């Protein structure tokens, strides 16, 4: 169609350059605990906007990458995992050893840190395999410790929390509530770091209970087909993405393209219900009426402003009303940029990516579960801001979270000019290739280290456990409960 909007890539790059070059305003203070996430939104967006061969110069010069990676690594914690923000990271003590508070290491921050390290890898020299920027991307990451720490974040029911804390008189506690996001992130960190080491081989680290995690996720489907933190709560598109994404990652081969709809994803109990629920998240976005002057009664109307119902149902068959297609996160909730991504990504992870793309009004062949053209118009005409970036609601200011997931939504819908996007790991597909090579190098190093210690008989798995006890003593003054239980 003639009047389709275009994505102004340069404008979005200007927005991200601004975010990268100057401190974020104090409105972001509530995200201080997760600056690693903010950093991921920025660097990931830049990567989405600058696919190789596009001729777009990245606002992050190659010379800066090393110092940015150093910053990420500076938040790695001695007990495994990464801190979410330098305001929480504890300084080294007088002996030069970094002070430890187990709760500083945070599960989401750890995924964002690994994604950032891969996104910020040095470019490969095309023909020189010896000078491999991708393979060096995870240099400095303590793979074994992070995987062991990850294992401790799993609860007996299979779910994951985000942080560990020793509570006086109560022992170790897995903090962070019952939240599907942590389940997804645990599966992602596992996929990024584990590799294919078999039990008993050098480099082996005990895995968490993947069956328990899958059981927990599969039991969280709700009566209407969606996914929630548990089957007893309201389903939510973000959680649905996380549930499906986690199942897909537990099944995913360690390299190459994911198997479309792996066996775990196929074992979702009510698959037709899930697809109906996901397809129901899109709705026709109708313009709100002109705001009335002196409207004092607008305090709580935000909920309806973005979710207007037609006067008559047949109005929805009128083509002029079909221009903008928004997504909400829950039934009868308002339009929000990020849900186009969560819904689109969830459908792609279900193995229905081929059903994405195309749309009704642009005359493409039917067979799409998400109205690509309408969703695209909604994002570009209603959510994109004139300074670049995307907002949460129509007419709002942009923020880094929605600006990033607006781009991710367009990328997963196949927007030309953007990087090919991996819906499972939420980074460009080329970044996943970096992760694979970086992981292989890490695993190789761990193998070599274990072989060497086997050779001279200095380090055995039992000794590693002993180290963990010592660590627990340092942190809490007592042997950690999780070790005594075994």
């Amino acid at each position, binding site marked *: 169609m003639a009047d389709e909007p275009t994505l102004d890539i340069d404008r979005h790059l200007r927005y991200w350059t601004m975010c990268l070059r100057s401190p974020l305003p104090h409105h972001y203070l509530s995200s201080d605990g997760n600056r690693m996430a903010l950093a991921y939104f920025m660097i990931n967006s830049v990567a989405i906007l600058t696919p190789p061969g596009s001729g777009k110069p990245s606002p992050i010069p190659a010379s800066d990458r090393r110092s940015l990676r150093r910053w990420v690594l500076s938040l790695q914690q001695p007990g495994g995992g990464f801190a979410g923000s330098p305001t929480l990271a*504890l300084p080294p003590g007088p002996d030069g050893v970094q002070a430890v508070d187990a709760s500083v290491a945070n599960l989401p921050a750890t995924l964002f840190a690994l994604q950032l390290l891969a996104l910020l890898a040095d470019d490969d020299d095309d023909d020189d395999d010896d000078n491999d920027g991708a393979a060096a991307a995870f240099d400095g990451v303590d793979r074994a410790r992070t995987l062991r720490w990850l294992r401790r974040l799993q609860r007996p029911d299979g779910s994951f929390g985000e942080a560990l804390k020793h509570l006086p008189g109560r022992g170790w506690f897995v903090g962070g509530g019952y939240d599907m996001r942590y389940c997804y992130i645990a599966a992602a960190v596992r996929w990024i770091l584990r590799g294919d080491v078999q039990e008993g081989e050098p480099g082996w680290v005990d895995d968490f209970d993947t069956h328990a995690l899958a059981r927990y996720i599969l039991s969280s489907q709700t009566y209407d087909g969606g996914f929630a933190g548990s089957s007893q709560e309201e389903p939510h598109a973000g959680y649905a993405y996380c549930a499906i994404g986690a199942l897909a990652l537990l099944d995913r081969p360690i390299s190459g393209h994911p198997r479309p709809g792996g066996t775990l994803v196929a074992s979702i109990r009510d698959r037709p219900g899930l697809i109906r629920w996901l397809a129901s998240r899109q709705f026709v976005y109708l313009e709100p009426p002109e705001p009335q002057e002196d409207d004092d009664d607008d*305090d709580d109307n935000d909920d309806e402003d973005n979710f207007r119902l037609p006067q008559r149902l047949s109005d929805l068959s009128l083509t002029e009303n079909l221009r903008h297609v928004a997504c909400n996160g829950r039934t009868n909730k308002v339009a929000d940029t990020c849900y186009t991504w969560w819904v689109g990504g969830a459908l792609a992870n279900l193995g229905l990516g081929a059903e994405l793309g195309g749309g009704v009004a642009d005359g493409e062949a039917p067979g799409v579960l998400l109205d690509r053209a309408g969703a695209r118009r909604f994002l570009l005409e209603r959510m994109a801001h004139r300074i670049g970036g995307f907002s949460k609601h129509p007419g709002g200011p942009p923020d880094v979270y929605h600006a990033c997931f607006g781009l991710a939504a367009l990328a997963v819908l196949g927007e030309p000019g953007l990087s090919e996007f991996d819906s499972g790991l939420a980074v460009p597909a080329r970044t996943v290739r970096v992760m694979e090579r970086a992981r292989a190098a890490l695993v190789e190093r761990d193998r070599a280290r274990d072989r060497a210690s086997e050779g001279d008989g200095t380090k055995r798995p039992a000794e590693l456990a002993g180290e963990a006890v010592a660590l627990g003593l340092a942190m809490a003054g007592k042997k950690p409960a999780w070790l005594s239980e075994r």
Partner: protein
Amino acid sequence: MPPSKKGGGKGKASQASTPPPPPPLATTTTAAEDKVTSQGGATTGKPPSKESDDESDSAIGPVLPSSSTAAPTDPLPATAALPEPRTVLERTRARFAAARPYEARLIFGSRQPPPTLAEPEEPGPGLGGLKDLEPRERAAWLATRIAARIARRPALSATTTTGGAGAAELARVACGGGAKTVREAWKLVNEGSVPLRAAGEKQLLGAATAPTPASTGIARRRREGASSRGEPAPAGSLEARTIAAAEARWERRVRLACLLAESRCFRAQRERETRGVRDDRTGEPAVVTEREVVEDKRRRLEIAALRRDMAAHGSGPASRAAGKIASNPDWDDVVPVVLEEPAGALASIAYPADYAEAMSYLRAVMKANEHSERCLWLTEHIINMNASHYTVWLYRAAILFALEKPIAEEIEWLNEIALANLKNYQIWHHRHLLVENHFPSIAADPAAVAAFAASERRFLERILAEDTKNYHVWSYRSYLANKLGLFSDADELASVERMIDDDVRNNSAWSHRFFLVFSHPDRATPGAAATEPDPKAPPEMVDREVAYAQAKIRLAPQNQSPWSYLRGVLVKGGRKLGEAEGFAREFVTGLGKGEDEEDVTSTHALDLLADIYAEQGRKEEADLCLQRLGQKWDRIRLGYWEWRRRGLGTEAAAA
């Protein structure tokens, strides 16, 4: 909707609901009150606005007469008749009346003039204040106004003009009159012996009543709550504060200022000592003696006590400054760990100074693994600035348990924090942890459990009234119902039913109802999935829920929530979808019979019919439903409906 407009609307609304109380001295008619407002606007050029009560002391301070009013030819009545003012406001009004006699007459009306004024000849019937004044008085009043402007303007241009002639000329231009007007004005002022400076009118009009637009959720809610209940002026406000209290406060402020200055000198000296600075005259190195250290410690203890005291008696700069940790002697032994951002730091945030300070102390005490009262206070201080630090919440929990704090009190404290941070989820994780640790202490006592359930429900209803679909609140509510066993609790069911009655589209409430009904331990198979039949679900309960959903669908047929609920109930009850065929057909007429005859009032009915027909093997009819959905009634989901058609495996769909 931009937030600024929203804030403005709130401010307006609360202002309208709380008119400033009439000044105690002007207890006359409504007309007189009207006059107060209009005259206030006319004389100051802006409506009375909120003033911090701390500023009132200085504003009412010395009323300086102009240099030309030294002559004691006072035509005004003596102030001997002045009754002793009791409160600061009364004193301010008396001073105003003394300083601006005519304006006081205009503002307070003539029927009951302030005690400093002579009885007027006639009570003014509200025809405009000036009429109440005698011509002589009127002229004097006008002259003071003109003279006041003249007195201000030349001063501004003093740098550009050299001689008095220039100033006079400018003054003449400034007041828009000729040189003669200026002379006349000064003459009248001299004759009337009227002072030129006086208290502002805002102090006069009950300063503490106008709301400030920018305020935190808790403070605003408390204030709105207080004013809407028509409570008397708070104890710290200008109306209620007695002169003795105001003077005592003033003394404390002076004392505080002195202490702060001394303490600053001490710190400067200590700084000089560390840097090895030598005295300019004597050449001696700066030294801080042990005694001075002890003295400063005592000094800062007194500062902290004074600040606590002043914070307890009204807000103001003193209580705002109370958050400063570095000058608080409780924290003397802690060396803050300041954050230094290295080059290459990503996503740095412009931290406010208070926040950066608090975080540097947090790092220090967390490093030392300290569990103490002051650390508990520090976590609260940080949470008030940023409630989403997972680590701070876990640290707070550790301190609570280490100090064996009563958990019920912590839950109470958490209520206000949650109300001020509706979208925060760490708060709910914390609440979850608290309840996990509180429940064992009440589990054996059914009355205590019921009381706890009731108090939690009161709070949940309060917070859901502000944000009816808040995800964290509903998740917690589901957890709580499980923990406390609220499945048969009539109040819990009624509470959720009320929310559906209020908004039949509230899907959170629908989800909670499904959970309460179908997860009841007596009527559910443990571990049964939400999407599979449960033989333990009693048929009469299933019938009741089917009827409930259908009644709500009739209220709003295009509302997906009860349709999803209806399907869920049928599946749980092990029923065929076909049971709802008759009901679903109510919303569909003349399907496939052409544009004129076909009407659909709910796409969800058509969707359900498609599944019902497919269930019964009536594929062609199912296909027609899906086709019409994609072609007409739900075009944006054409791709989805076509995908469903392919799943039917009919010839029509394959074609």
